[in-house]
């Protein structure tokens, strides 16, 4: 028996995933029925049953969304704690890179939340209308979400079953530290250009939100997310750790840094996800949701402010940059 599988936190995590799968499976069956038989104009008892099941379906998916968010936070926490059992790992970075399933799993989980948020958004639009025009779309979309969940479970099992406690892994300093002579940043950027891009894209996204330029948000936000990841890992992170060589996206989840990682990454993902959803609404459904826009703006603004203020405070305190 693998030692990792007897870890309390892993057991709890896997149990949560199982329960989520159970919820999703029930929802999946209803979704399947809706895709097949839904007809709002029909007056057959079948349709009435389907309509009632629709409310169960909605509640199930909303629950799935609610618990998935906490589940993902918990997942990060678990792998962060597992570094004690894996030789060489200093934080979650080592654990998640311990085998090839870790990183795709984390990305999938984030993407899954994005999909569920998008679903919830369609759901709100759907329920607002008296004819439930998007119910079929919603149900079909959920089938895709369900497949994503299956993939997550597949990666979950593979990840934890293949987590070896006897093989040393690299700690974050070798995984995210600059390899000798190698530039870890994408597109061959240097730090200065990276920062210019970071703020430039932020202005574009933020401005596009104010000016309601949906197509631009759809284009710029993914790029901003990508650049922001590298900016935080390779630049802002060093100011959080106050160490120019400490380049790691995960260590900031630890207590030593006041769990600031949850806030930083949380606001980034919330902001970009909501901005994207807003843009999709605007382009696809011609609906401009003020609330979504506002949340996106506040989150993104918060994200940039927190990151920048770490640099600013360091400069005020020490009079120099790292």
């Amino acid at each position, binding site marked *: 028996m693998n030692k990792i599988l007897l870890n309390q936190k892993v057991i709890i995590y896997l149990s949560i995933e199982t329960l989520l799968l159970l919820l999703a499976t029930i929802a999946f069956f209803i979704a399947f029925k809706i895709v097949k038989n839904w007809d*709002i*104009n029909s*007056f057959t008892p079948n349709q009435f049953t389907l309509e*009632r099941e629709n409310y169960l379906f909605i509640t199930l998916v909303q629950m799935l969304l609610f618990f998935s968010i906490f589940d993902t936070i918990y997942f990060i926490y678990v792998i962060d704690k597992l570094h004690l059992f894996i030789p060489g790992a200093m934080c979650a970075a080592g654990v998640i890179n311990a085998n090839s399933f870790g990183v795709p799993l984390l990305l999938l989980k984030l993407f899954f939340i994005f999909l569920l948020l998008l679903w919830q958004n369609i759901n709100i639009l759907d*329920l607002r209308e*008296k004819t439930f025009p998007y119910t079929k779309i919603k149900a079909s979309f959920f089938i895709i979400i369900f497949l994503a969940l299956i993939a997550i479970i597949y990666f979950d099992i593979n990840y934890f079953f293949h987590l070896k406690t006897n093989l040393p892994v690299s700690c974050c300093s070798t995984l995210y530290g600059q390899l000798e002579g190698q530039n870890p940043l994408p597109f061959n950027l240097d730090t200065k250009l990276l920062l210019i891009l970071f703020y430039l894209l932020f202005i574009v996204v933020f401005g596009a939100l104010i000016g309601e330029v949906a197509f631009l948000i759809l284009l710029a936000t993914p790029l901003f997310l990508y650049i922001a990841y590298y900016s935080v890992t390779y630049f802002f992170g060093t100011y959080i750790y106050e160490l120019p060589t400490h380049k790691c996206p995960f260590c900031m989840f630890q207590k030593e840094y006041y769990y600031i990682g949850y806030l930083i990454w949380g606001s980034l993902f919330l902001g970009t996800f909501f901005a994207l959803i807003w843009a999709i609404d605007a382009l696809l459904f011609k609906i401009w949701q003020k609330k979504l826009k506002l949340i996106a703006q506040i989150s993104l603004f918060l994200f940039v402010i927190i990151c920048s203020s770490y640099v600013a405070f360091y400069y005020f305190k020490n009079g120099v940059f790292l």
Partner: protein
Amino acid sequence: MIDIQNLTKKVQPNQTILDNISFRVKKGELVIVKGVSGSGKTTLLSILATLDKPTSGKVLINNQAVHKLPDLHLSLFRAQHIGFVAQHFNLIEHLSVYDNLLIAKGALTNSIKEAKSDITKALKQANILHKKDAIVKNLSGGEKQRTAIARALVNCADILLFDEPTAALDSKNSQTFLELLQNLHKMQKTIIVATHDPIFDTLKAKTFIMQDGKLYE
């Protein structure tokens, strides 16, 4: 305004309860539907109250085709526009009068502050304010009915439906009910009463007669 067109309700394929009914009720009108028990009055009323769906035909209330609405919107519509006083009042017996009204208010809002004044107003209109904190179980038949009426009024519904309102009352209470009904009529509420009690013959109202699922004027 209520507009019913070719309304048919079947329970089983061969058992027809309502057979091709059409009629109109204008806003502020008082309508009495007469008929012996089992003639389909209650079914008609529950379709009007949007609790039941017709097998075929159209039900338009305030220009809204309610037979087409999904439950989410239908319920909202019911809460906003329809006050229904059933034969056995359908109160939750172990709760107080106030709590019973709070449930009705809860269908539309979540703010108690907002609800409180509306509840007091409705209790006053139904003349039951003095029993506000009494447990429904301990009330008399007439008081229970007034509680049910207050509950129907609490969301400012413009359509009130009564199913056999005097069946459980003695003659004195029935008389009081008639006075209340006339008061409500004066408030420009659309009222439909299903009954077989001859006491309503004294009222000046539009009267329909129901027989074997058909409606006659």
